[in-house]
């Protein structure tokens, strides 16, 4: 029998205590690399460029495109017949949080169900850069990932990070990049059983944060319209430690722990992005409406399987959507209108969309995002469906998720100044027969072997040899 679940230290991962700067783990290579003659994909939605060159120096992109000069002293790599792209960015994942999901207690840091904390939880210390899932993802060209906590007992799951998949001990690109909250079916269950309880729980939590932060209650009144959310995603580098001190007085009328309330102060101030998981059309609109009571909130929607039915209103709101690409089943009553055309239709209506893997083996299958993006290109040929151009589909797994979490200037494209995350593919990266042949992260060439490739090499042949398989290394 399995030992009974107990309150483990893992359950209390990452209570806010970091003193880290905005970008930790920045370990760039000083070397200059020029990749020439490839089919170059910038990742910004533009179409591929034949015979382009990509130059990386000091861990950053110097230039990419046609007619780029090769600096003297650069290591030149001929990518003739290959494709050269920015690394894939996993738009919504749990990458690095679990080695094995089921029946391997201790290797899975996604479960915070026994923690007394919620919003204060921070995934940062749970990310294991040596997790086999990270190596497998890297081998398939995934260089960055948005990593969200899984909600435990509260609708507030805690604070997620943006990581890289580099083979080093510094995986965190941005800690506490966002707060994650469940507001649909998954939220209702945690809030007491209904959406009504979710919304009042949410409003109360933000009220407590507002009070703790000493902020004024300034809801929109009467006919005041909600302004479209600005493109800039805020980021508060340093949580205010004073909020945790005993001098920061709180009312006795509170539900949240001090840590949790303090963690929501940047959210209610509009200084930390709030990722909200909703699927149903009415939930989407209710969440967008929260900005009437809390005008400073900076929201991005996660999921939104019925987004296409209210696409105009999402577009007007200016919020980002990170959606699953291929949900097309009424898997629950909150996604009855699910269709693979969701993303294409939202995009056509002007919604800012990125692809993520929401509740879809999100600890390990981010490598299939490129297949999903390719499938959205396929829809362009299906009568009545809404697909994507190739360039747009690729952007949705590179620059778009980066932009959605406020890192569009750092990662996700080969535009000048971006981090040197570059992949050379054997062919079209959205195709099923293509694979990475070389991967750089922050300009550092990465190893492309992992547990799986080692097993492959060991078992290529089943012939009996002089010594058992265990001696084949």
């Amino acid at each position, binding site marked *: *029998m*399995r030992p009974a679940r107990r309150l483990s230290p893992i359950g209390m991962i990452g209570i806010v205590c970091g003193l880290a700067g905005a970008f930790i783990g920045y370990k760039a290579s000083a070397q200059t690399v020029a990749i020439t003659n490839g089919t170059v994909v910038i990742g910004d939605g533009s179409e591929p460029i034949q015979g382009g060159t990509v130059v990386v120096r000091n861990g950053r992109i110097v230039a990419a495109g046609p007619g780029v000069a090769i600096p003297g002293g650069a290591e030149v790599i001929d990518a003739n017949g290959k494709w050269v792209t920015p690394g894939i960015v996993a738009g919504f994942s749990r990458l690095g949080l679990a*080695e*094995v*999901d*089921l*029946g*391997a207690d201790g290797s899975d840091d996604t479960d915070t169900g026994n923690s007394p904390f919620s919003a204060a939880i921070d995934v940062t210390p749970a990310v294991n850069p040596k997790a*086999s*899932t990270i190596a*497998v993802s890297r081998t398939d060209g995934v260089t960055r990932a948005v990593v969200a906590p899984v909600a435990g007992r509260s609708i507030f799951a805690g604070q997620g990070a943006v990581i890289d998949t580099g083979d080093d001990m510094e995986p965190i690109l941005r800690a506490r990049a966002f707060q994650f909250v469940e507001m649909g079916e998954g939220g209702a269950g945690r809030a007491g059983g209904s959406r009504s309880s979710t919304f009042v729980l949410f409003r109360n939590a933000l009220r407590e944060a507002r009070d703790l932060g000493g902020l004024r209650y300034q809801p929109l009144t009467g006919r005041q319209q909600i302004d479209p959310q600005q493109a800039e995603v805020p980021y508060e580098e340093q949580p205010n430690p004073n909020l945790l001190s005993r001098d920061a007085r709180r009312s006795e009328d509170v539900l949240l722990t001090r840590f949790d309330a303090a963690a929501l102060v940047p959210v209610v101030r509009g200084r930390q992005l709030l990722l909200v998981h909703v699927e149903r*059309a009415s939930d989407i609109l209710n969440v967008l409406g929260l900005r009437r009571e809390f005008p400073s909130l900076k929201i991005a929607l996660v999921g939104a399987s*019925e987004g296409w*039915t209210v696409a105009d209103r999402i577009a007007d709101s200016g919020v980002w959507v990170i959606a699953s690409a*291929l949900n*097309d*089943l*009424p*898997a*629950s*009553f909150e996604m*009855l*209108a*699910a*269709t*693979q*055309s969701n993303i294409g239709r939202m995009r056509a209506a002007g919604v800012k969309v990125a692809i993520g893997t929401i509740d*879809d*083996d999100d600890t*390990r299958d981010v*490598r*299939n995002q490129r*297949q999903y993006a*390719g*499938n959205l*290109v*396929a*829809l362009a*040929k*299906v*009568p*009545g*469906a809404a697909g994507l151009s190739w360039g747009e589909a690729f952007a949705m797994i590179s620059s778009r998720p980066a932009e959605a979490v406020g890192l569009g200037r750092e990662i996700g494209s080969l535009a000048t100044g971006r981090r040197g995350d570059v992949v050379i593919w054997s062919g079209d990266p*959205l*195709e*099923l*027969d*293509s*694979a990475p042949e070389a991967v750089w992260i922050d300009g550092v060439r990465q190893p492309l072997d992992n*547990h*799986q*490739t080692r*097993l*492959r090499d060991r*078992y*290529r042949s*089943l012939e009996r040899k002089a010594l058992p398989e265990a001696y084949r290394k």
Partner: protein
Amino acid sequence: MRTKGGLARLAAVIAVAGLSACVAPKEKPKPGAIRINENPFPSTYHPYGGVPTLIRNATILDGEGGRIDNGSILLVNGKIEAVGGADLGAPEGAAVIDAGGKYVTPGIIDVHSHLGDYPSPGTASHSDGNEATSPARPEVWAEHSVWPQDPGFSRALANGGVTSLQILPGSANLFGGRSVTLKNVPARTMQGMKFPGAPYGLKMACGENPKRVYGSKNQMPQTRMGNIAYVRQTWAKAVEYDRKWDKYEKVGGEIPVRDLAMDTLRGVLDGKILVHNHCYRADEMANMIDVAKEFGYRIASFQHGVEAYKVADLMRENGICGALWADWYGFKMESYDAINENLAFVHNAGACAIVHSDDANGIQRLNQEAAKAIAAGRRAGVNISEEVAWTWLSSNSARSLGIFDQTGSLKAGKMADVVLWNGNPFSAYTRPDKVWIDGALLYDAANPKLRPVSDFELGQPGEGDVK
């Protein structure tokens, strides 16, 4: 790979079977006079029919490893009439479709689905796939849980080109129950979908799931050794039951007490019911092969077989198919050693490889899973052509289900279960253009009227949409 004689035997038994009553003794009871009705829920499926159809100028993958460029295929009266080159003519009044070089393949057969048993929406009241009340439940039949209105069937048809599928019970139990093979044709009843004449399967499970489900209740099995002991004890009973009935059928006497669980196992021992064994780890597959030998039955397939590449030689020697994923990994300990080359390596070792889904989403992209698998194989130096890889999607699947004499390849006389793709089906950019089942055009991307909508979806947001 072998073909089981079970199908013919089953048909023979059905022919003589009356329900377990009706004995008319003359002088003395005839030995074996009473027979158990082995088909109490008979198929009522009838093909919907269609016009004679010639698809010409197609790249044909016949599902048995053959390829015809600029090929033609003629569908008449629900059957494949002929497959050939550009010179194949059409009968008077036939619909002629110029494929423009696009691909025509046999319909995909998924040997591992829970559609209908775990339907959408996945509410608790819809959870009908595991009778997790005892580790051995061979008496339950997956068909009795199938909800024909599961919207997942239509997605598998329209997006996946799936024309037949096996619905298996889940893997909570060592003996999960009987599987059923369905034609992927919408119907009001399970019987209306049931593949005529397909033998039953028995779902068995190794490994983590049974020991977790029962071990957590402090019941046997709690360990892998408990799994095997329980399985052997159950087979030992089944052998005894089989003997009693064999004796009764030969020499008469007191009719043995009927036991539905043992009926299923007896069907396996008699070669009429095919064992589909959920098993991940190489060492466990080897153990199950020995159990099968000990009790005198055969395993038709290992389902999931994440470590099949480690024992592909054993699978070849024992004629066992591996129904596999392209790249699922690591979600539990027994899937920790998954490799992307599994399908290619199993195939390359001379064993029978099948691409399966076990998933309402994955079933919509089995062709793409095959594409990933051949690509991984090629990178590892195992070159498998597209036409050979299609055996993983139709003929090997059909063989493992005992329906290969009826479907699973594009050969004259077989059911006209055919997909015309709008490109190369090994590309992410390709979707089914048209799908025929028994010659009936049941999906046409260009015709919204040929887009099935389940009862559940009527009047709901998104009804009749492209999905």
